[in-house]
């Protein structure tokens, strides 16, 4: 496994990254099984194949650091620490969910773990991330905010406005573009007039890092560099992490628009087992240790799902709550 990274993180960090990747992978497998079986119908954007990126980012973050993510965001959330029980209850639309069942898959929010917003609008994670970073800059609380978004989102106006403002104000924010080669059904090249999203950083006098988002060590190094810069008050960074989504845009996606060889090759190079093997080859962990991590996650996910599906539904009166601080009178 190649890596641009000279300094290697220590064993605990290496295993922590693996643990997050394993959690995301198993969580996604469970989600797709539940959808396939019809046990839990929901709109679901699989992050399978993109596990490395938020895992490598999150091991460099403090619990009180913020993230802003998107509809394709369960990997970002889990890596940051959104608890399985509350996450699954929300996916199931239950009163015990992170958002009392009001937000759902595209709007998971969990401030305790720093997940401040999940947006369903392409590009909108970035301007809001600036605001969280602005508050940190004013308070001097040393927090860093990470804005996750996709490759196609780099063509929308909010990207441009947000990166320009972040640079002008030297905000402690890191823009992480997860370039999975497609925006819905459209190939990156067909919609984007630049070969590397990271090259757009120059338009904002901001460092731009182009990295293999499926290489845990390279991704870790890129994330650490950007997060340290932000925390030191030296301003924002744009990271383009190249990756691939294994299961298309949204669950049920036929993939007819996809380059089959490209997809096959990407899946053959599945970053999770690859990293797992590397950890063993390098003697960082034994098969048994890693298996324990995997099974631990599997059972925790299973338990969370069962708890979620048994949990109560929100009461219809919830429609009148949380619109404003004061409760509305039913119309």
């Amino acid at each position, binding site marked *: 496994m190649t890596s641009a990274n000279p300094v290697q993180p220590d064993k605990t960090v290496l295993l922590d990254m693996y643990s997050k990747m394993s959690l995301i992978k198993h969580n996604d497998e469970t989600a797709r099984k539940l959808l396939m079986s019809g046990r839990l119908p929901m709109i679901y954007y699989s992050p399978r194949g993109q596990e490395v990126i938020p895992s490598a980012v999150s091991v460099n973050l403090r619990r009180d650091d913020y993230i802003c993510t998107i509809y394709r965001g369960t990997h970002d959330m889990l890596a940051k620490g959104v608890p399985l029980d509350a996450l699954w209850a929300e996916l199931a639309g239950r009163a015990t969910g992170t958002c009392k069942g*009001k937000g759902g898959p*595209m709007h998971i929010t969990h401030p305790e773990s720093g997940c401040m917003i999940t947006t369903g609008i392409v590009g909108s994670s970035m301007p809001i991330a600036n605001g969280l970073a602005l508050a940190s800059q004013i308070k001097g609380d040393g927090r860093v905010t990470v804005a996750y978004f996709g490759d196609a989102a780099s063509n929308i106006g909010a990207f441009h406005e947000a990166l320009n403002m972040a640079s002008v104000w030297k905000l402690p924010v890191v823009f992480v573009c997860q370039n999975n080669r497609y925006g819905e059904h459209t190939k990156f090249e067909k919609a984007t007039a630049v070969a590397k999203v990271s090259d757009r950083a120059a338009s904002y006098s901001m460092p731009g890092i182009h990295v293999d988002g499926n290489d845990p060590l390279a991704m870790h190094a890129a994330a650490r560099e950007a997060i340290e810069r932000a925390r030191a008050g030296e301003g924002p960074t744009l990271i383009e992490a190249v990756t691939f989504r294994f299961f298309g845009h949204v669950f049920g996606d036929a993939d007819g628009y996809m380059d089959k060889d490209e997809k096959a090759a990407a899946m053959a190079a599945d970053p999770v087992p690859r990293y797992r093997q590397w950890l063993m080859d390098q003697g960082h962990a034994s098969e048994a240790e890693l298996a324990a991590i995997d099974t631990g996650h599997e059972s925790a996910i299973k338990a969370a799902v069962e708890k979620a599906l048994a949990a109560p539904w929100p009461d219809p009166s919830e*429609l009148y709550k949380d619109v404003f601080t004061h409760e509305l009178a039913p119309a």
Partner: protein
Amino acid sequence: MSKQITTLQAINEALHHAMESDPTVLLFGEDVADPEEGGVNGASKGLSTRFGDLRVRSTPISEQAIIGAAIGAAMAGMRPIAEIMLMNFMTVAMDMITNHAAKLRFMSGGQTAVPLTIRCTTGAGFGTAGQHADYLEAWFAHTPGLKVVTGATPAEVSGLLNACIFDDDPCIFIENLPAYWQKGEAPADPGARIPLGQARTVRDGGDVTVITYGPQVAVASAAAEQLAGEGIGVEVIDLRTIVPWDRDTVLNAVARTNRAVVTHEAVRAFGVGAEIASVIHEELFGQLRAPVQRVGAPSSAVPYSNPLEKAFMPDADKVIAAIRKTLN
């Protein structure tokens, strides 16, 4: 009984017919070309293959640029159809739509026209929650210079879409996503146009008039059906065009029944129903047996959880309750 087709097929056939019959008709939007599967729902399948990449284009995710390109092309004599995947995404192109498309004819003193059709889908019932299901027609209805249109059956969608495409003013054409896979009679002719500004009486009834549009036409009809069993005659009117709306048909109908209910899936407060109800009261004051009742969604974002989403959407029971209110 004639051929049954889905709303999606009706749209696809109307688009084919329009592009075939007029070379100035263009289509662009996210994923609309065939390499991208003719749209995430396949509404434009086959068009780029048949009419070429110049006229049918998949775009970057750049709604301002999409609408801007459509406006400019329209000013230069084209008839662009711009697809904004979901109505909530209109918000990122709101300047282009409301400050430009809607106003250029007036601000230029009639020198420039914007024969543009903006297609979008929306609608709750899918668990897509707060940012993917809003009905925002009231915003556009309040914006002078825009026509706002929506159809209730495959044939209606086809005829109204054709009318919008060949209308010389900018039209917001709203497609109900859940209805995409519902079947109905195919239009006699995929090129047939239903004149804008003319409502359709879906069902006669002597006791109450329900004015509605889009997906609520089916809901209101179900309510009418149920009340027919009780011997209550409910007339259902499908506005079809929200701007300009058919005042004559509505006022003549209510002048007969003296009772009216307006229902839409959009949030009730400050919604389209308020304008319709106000005009009915203004024009038929003294003739009404009861105040016009308005049915719509409560004042919250569209919720995710299934029971909440059900409670949020105006259903037949809510329409029936409103009708009963006018009868007491």
